[in-house]
Structure formats: structure tokens, C-alpha cells
């Protein structure tokens, strides 16, 4: 199982590296949205107020995550799926995919935060909490969206729209928690204020991961 996961993970990274256009497109997407924010705020004195700063960062990350995760299962044809099915258990596929998406989104979030801080100023007062929360958010987006992307890929046709329709409602509660903790980190509030939200986030990530793990074999069987 563990060897299957590492093999699949290595395969995903190799594919990504050979097809650099997708990765480049993703980074360019993040870069250009941050740049558009920078341009629109530079009309009025440069840095946005902290609430707007926070909201925009999470919107950029949310859409980048949907774009990044969406292509994961959609690239794979039915024949390829059958081939994997004969080689590895479906649990290995979903775990490898979630892990891969989590790593990809962590990288995207780091790049986005760096560009964002460089261009739009740095109002963060508690950096450890902010970065920890960002990592938790990237992992959470990955776990939630991986199964949703598998579902959307099966529906065919307009997969990206369907992914937004199916994924956003599930992500809103998580996003509310993330934005709350991120606001606390921006304002430099004490850890005790955000501890219950962070515990809920960790629990939510575990729950979503576990449900995906249980449901994916059924998705794959057909």
C-alpha cells in the first residue's frame, strides 16, 4: 500500500514536470490575479485595509485550488483508470492523489503569499499562526476537492463548472473558519482566541479525508 502510494505520487510529479505548461499556467494565474489586485489598490494609495487583504488572499487561493485540483482526475481516461484498477487498490489512488494535491497547493499557497506580501504589503502580526493556518487551508482544500474532482470528472461535459457547484458549498464552512483564524493572525490576537477554530479545522480535515477514503472505492468501481 505504502509503496503503491509513493509510486503513484512519483508518477504524478513526473507527469506534472513533463507537462510544465499546466504548472506554469497555475503560477501565472496566481501571479496575474495578485497583480490585478495590486493595480486596483494602487489607484488608492497602495496597500488595502487588512479585511480586504485577507478576503482577497483567500479568494485567490480558493480559485487557484479549484483550478489546480480540477485537472487531476480529468486528465485520466477510462482506459487508464482500468489499468490502474488492475494494479493498485483504489485507496492508494485516492491517498496518493490527496497527498499530491496537498503538496501542490502548499507550493501554490507559498508562492501566492510571497507575491501578495511583496506587492500588497504585509499587515500580518502573528506570522506562525498565519502560515500554519495557510498550510491547514491548503491541505483542507486538497482533501475536500480531490473527491469532488473525481465526481465531477465522471459527470463529463462541463467538469469545471460542476466542480465549483459541488465543491463550494462543501468548502464554505471550512473557508469561514480559515478566514476567521487568518483574521486573528492578522490582528495579532492571542492563541486562545483561535484555538477552538484550529482544532475544528484539523478535525474537519481528518473527517473529510476519512470519508473520501471510504467513498472513493465506490466511485472507482464503475
Amino acid at each position, binding site marked *: 500500500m505504502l509503496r503503491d502510494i509513493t509510486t503513484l505520487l512519483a508518477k504524478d510529479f513526473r507527469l506534472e514536470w513533463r507537462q510544465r505548461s499546466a504548472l506554469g499556467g497555475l503560477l501565472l494565474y496566481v501571479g496575474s490575479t495578485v497583480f490585478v489586485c495590486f493595480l486596483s489598490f494602487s489607484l488608492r494609495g497602495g496597500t488595502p485595509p487588512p479585511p480586504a487583504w485577507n478576503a482577497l488572499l483567500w479568494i485567490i487561493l480558493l480559485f487557484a485550488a479549484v483550478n489546480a485540483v480540477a485537472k487531476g482526475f480529468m486528465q485520466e481516461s477510462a482506459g487508464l483508470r482500468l489499468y490502474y484498477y488492475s494494479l493498485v487498490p483504489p485507496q492508494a489512488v485516492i491517498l496518493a492523489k490527496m497527498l499530491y494535491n496537498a503538496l501542490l497547493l502548499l507550493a501554490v499557497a507559498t508562492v501566492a503569499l510571497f507575491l501578495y506580501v511583496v506587492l500588497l504589503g504585509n499587515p500580518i502580526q502573528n506570522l506562525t499562526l498565519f502560515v500554519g493556518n495557510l498550510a491547514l487551508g491548503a491541505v483542507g482544500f486538497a482533501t*475536500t476537492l480531490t*473527491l*469532488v474532482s473525481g*465526481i465531477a470528472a*465522471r*459527470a*463529463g*461535459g*462541463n467538469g469545471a463548472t*460542476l466542480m465549483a*457547484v*459541488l465543491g*463550494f*458549498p*462543501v468548502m*464554505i*464552512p*471550512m473557508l*469561514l*473558519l480559515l478566514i*476567521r483564524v487568518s483574521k486573528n493572525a492578522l490582528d495579532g490576537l492571542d492563541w486562545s482566541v483561535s484555538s*477552538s*477554530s484550529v482544532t*475544528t479545522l484539523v478535525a*474537519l480535515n481528518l*473527517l*473529510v479525508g476519512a*470519508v*473520501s477514503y471510504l*467513498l472513493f472505492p*465506490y*466511485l472507482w*468501481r*464503475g
Partner: protein
Amino acid sequence: MSKPVLGIIISVISLLLTIFAVWGGQRLIEQRSAGLAWKALTVLLLLAASTAGLLIDVPRLPIVNESIRNLFFHVPMWFAMMLVLLVSVWYSVRYLRNPSVRLDILSHEAAKAGIVLGLLGLATGSLWAKYTWGAWWTPDPRLNAAAVALLIYGGYLVLRGSFRDEQQRARISAIYNIFAFAAAIPLLFILPRISGNSLHPGQTGNPGFNKYDLDSTMRPVFYAAVIGWILFSFWLTQVSSRLSLLQEKINENQ
């Protein structure tokens, strides 16, 4: 008895009650006989609770005043929605373990009944909010939660609409039903408690059970309304799933 122990006992009892209600709901929905007794009880309870809800004396609390009567309509609708959605999820679980057209139809119709009750609950709540808070919609945690729940089931209907193959539609919508319910619905109960700035009544403790309905004249009417609306949601599911099953049969014979 100490407070945490009492809390655990209450939680266990409500869990058992919920499991019993889901099991009983499935029995009622799948029932083959006419089931006159429980349907008569539903009509009686709903009529009695609505009449009494409009006529009995209610405590005059500041701000809410007469609008407290919404407790007899709005809250039972949400209870019924949660329960019938749980029934739908349980049918989805059963579908994945043992696929059949019948279980798919039952799960779909239960979800639709839940959506109808959710829309009713949203309408009554919005009306209440207009008179007590002065706005149709506010960014209150509990209201956000209601919107999320309806968006999820909107997504479920869109997903069902985007398949041509029936078996695939049944399997994948069952997966989404379970996933979305497990990922979002529990949080909708937790989030308002974490944020702690909700204006919505029943914000701490069990939703709906707080100082507003401590009044002993309101309790029996409230309980009657809850049971009545829950039975109504099962009835609705039964009728619509019977219709779908008959349509399915006609399609097969053609």
C-alpha cells in the same frame, strides 16, 4: 448530577432518538399498506399545533413579542428537514452497499422533501427576521449555515441532472450525498457555537431549546408541531417515491 454528565446523557439520548427516528422514517416511507393511523395523526397534530400555535397565550418577551409563535412553525420545519436528509443519506449508504433502482429513488425523493422543508423553513425564518431584526437576511452564522445546506442540495440536483447513464447517476449522486452531508452538515451545528456572535435564538445549547420555550404552555404545542412536521416529511417522501417508482415501472414496460 454534575453538568457535563447531564450533557453527555442528553447527547446520548438525542443520538438514540435520531437513530430511532431515521429507522422509523424508513419503515414508514417504505410501508406498503395505507398507513391511515399515522397519516391521521399527522393531520391532527399539524392542525392542532397550528391552531394552538396561533391562539394560545405566549409570554411577552422584549423584541420578539408575538413573533415568538414562529417557534411552532419555523423550528419544526428545520428539524424535519435535518431528519429527512439523514434518511436520504442512509438510503444512499444502503444503495452503495446494495445497488437497486428503488433505493436510488427513495434517496432522491427524501432529499427533495428535505429541500422543500428547507425552503419553507427559510421563508418562515426570513419573514420572522424582517419583523424582529428589520432585515430579510443577515450575515448571521446560523443563516449562513442554512444557505450552505440548501446550496449543497442544489448541487446534488445539478449533479443528478448531468448524467445520461442511470446507474452511474445513482452511484455518483449517492457518493456526493454522503460526502457533502458528512463534510458540511455537522459543522453547521458547530460553527454558530464557535463564532459566538449569533443573534439567532437557541444559539447556545440545543437549537430551539432555550429560555424562549421554557414556558410550560408552549412546550406541548412545540413538541406536537415537531412530531407533526417530521411525520409530514416522511409522508411527502412516501407519496413522491411511490409516484417515481410507478413511473419507473411504466418506463420499463414500454
